[in-house]
């Protein structure tokens, strides 16, 4: 099992009037086909860590390797390219582009990458959306979908370019219990059936308990990094 992400002594300090340390000396390795929960109290640096791993933010110090490549010397364009092909994001809010239909939202990352022909992109987008239970809603715009449906479109978009790693920031945080369960099941299926790695920030300990590995953060530091019993179930 090769490592998707290797982080050593990652530290992120915000230079405001008073320097604020968001992430403190974090070292971890994330491999393929893992299902990881990042937990911790509010302000413990869960999301900040996720953004660092997702190349959306740069660490103040420490080294980060994504897919075996050192992220430090990468330029802005190169990091964008990594996000495009290696990573998929799901946020607490769906963050779909409001003017585009569900299918177009899923197609946009594919078109940016440009690996497939247009008809194949269309077919693939429809296929992903249908596999997430969105048949019949493919050509609807985000404002015509329910919250749970939108979040499922967001997951479909994260899967568009078939990246090995999905980063989710409170993916169920703004959903009701039923939709929340649905989205969780989908993320679980992404790991179990598609063989991806999902790293999900959550404050829902019940959900976290159903994942394979839990990284617990307190004040920006890793307090616990443990494999959970559920992992043995599989």
């Amino acid at each position, binding site marked *: 099992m090769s490592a998707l992400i290797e982080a050593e002594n990652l530290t992120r300090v915000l230079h405001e009037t008073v320097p604020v340390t968001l992430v403190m000396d974090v070292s971890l390795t994330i491999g393929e086909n893992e299902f990881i929960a990042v937990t911790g109290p509010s302000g413990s640096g869960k*999301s*900040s860590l996720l*953004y660092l791993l*997702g190349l*959306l*933010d740069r660490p103040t110090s420490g080294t980060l390797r994504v897919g075996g490549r050192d992220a430090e010397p990468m330029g*802005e*364009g190169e990091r*964008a*390219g*990594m*996000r*495009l*092909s290696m*990573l998929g*994001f799901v*946020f*607490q*809010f769906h*963050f*779909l*582009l*409001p*003017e*585009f239909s569900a299918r*177009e939202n899923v197609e*946009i*990352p594919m*078109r*940016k*990458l440009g690996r497939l022909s247009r008809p194949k992109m269309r077919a693939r987008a429809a296929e992903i959306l249908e596999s997430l239970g969105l048949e019949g809603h493919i050509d609807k715009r985000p404002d015509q979908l329910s919250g749970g449906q939108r979040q499922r479109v967001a997951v479909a*978009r994260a899967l568009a*370019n078939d990246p090995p790693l999905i980063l989710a*920031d*409170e993916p169920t945080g703004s959903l009701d219990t039923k939709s929340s369960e649905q989205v969780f099941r989908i993320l679980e299926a992404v790991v179990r059936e598609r063989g991806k790695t999902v790293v999900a920030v959550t404050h829902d300990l019940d959900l976290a308990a159903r994942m394979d590995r839990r990284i617990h953060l307190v004040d920006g530091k890793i307090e616990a990094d443990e494999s959970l019993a559920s992992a043995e179930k599989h």
Partner: protein
Amino acid sequence: MQLILEIAFTHIAGRGRQTLVAIIGVAVGVGFSIAMAALMEGGQDDFVEQLVNTMPHVEVTDEERSARRQPAEAIFAVTEISGLRPREDRRGIINPTAALAWLGGWVPGRFAPSLNAQGVVRFSGREVGAAIVGIDPQSERGVSPIVGEFVAGDFAALTAGGNNIVIGDTMAERLGAELGDTVTAVSSQGLTRNFRIVGLFHTGTTARDEGEAYVLLKNAQILAERPNAVNKIRIKLDDPNQAPAVARRVEAELGYKAEAWQEANEALLEALVVRNVIMYTVVAAIMLVAGFGIFNIISTITHEKARDIAIMKSLGFAEGDMRRLFLLEGVVIGLGGSAFGWALGFGLVYALSLVRFELAATGQEMTRLPIAWSLLHYLIASGFALASAAVAGYLPARRAARQNPVDIIRGAT
């Protein structure tokens, strides 16, 4: 790039009302800039035209620029002559036939000789001082400001010969004379002669309408006791801007004072420069205000899209993609607005050109607004709008693209 283009069009089309407002904003800015520029420049052109049309472009008179030098002064270095009284000069342009023939050889335009004499026009006991102008009706047609301005009678009636006169309508009013009446002209030499009024003109220039009387050249020469004399040659050029050059050449060759219209109206032209400055300032101010309006609308839209910029960056779009996207959106809105603005501007200018009003002072002159139709106005106005729109799309997009997407995503949650 095609993807960026498609996203730009979807953005624009997807926000119907906002896009409409932005396009109307640009259109109003462009349209009003065009209309104001047309009005300002029209007024300017009209002013110059009035000025240039009512007077000859070059006027050759029988005066000389400086007093004639005494021969003794030319020969001896140190000479003082006092108590000198110049020889009585029979004023007039010497050998006018040769001078006119010489002018005919090269002047790009038309010219006419005349004899101007001071006199009085008398009718039933009333007298009005007048400049009696003796003209040659054939050549006068080419230079005269009165030919097309007749309110009664006709300029052509002068051509028929005989003792005919045309005067301004104001003079006729003051004399109490009407078309067909016989008036008496008295010259400063004391000679009198009766003339029948065959035409009344109204040019709008009071001095001319009240103080000029036109007769045949021969009649004026008789009245002034100067047979065959001509004391003025008026030249109308095809291009009024050549007047100074023509005047210089005429003066060098004939030795008489030749005055270009620019020289005769120096004070007015100075005022014109000031008007020009005012005009360009006003037009630039209108464009600037319109530009700010356009900037405001488009940058607001771009700001609202800051979240989309963050999302697209997280999906793997680079900063350059985002800048191009919003620059493109600004330009598309600018182009759309310009197109409508052209239509609006054209409509406004057309409407303005239809406006007619009476000049209250005289109560009889119908005037329309002077309008300059110029493609340049359209190009400048839309160029300005496009530039503002592009800047308005680019600057906020650049800021949003540079910003860490995390800050925007965090701000939204």
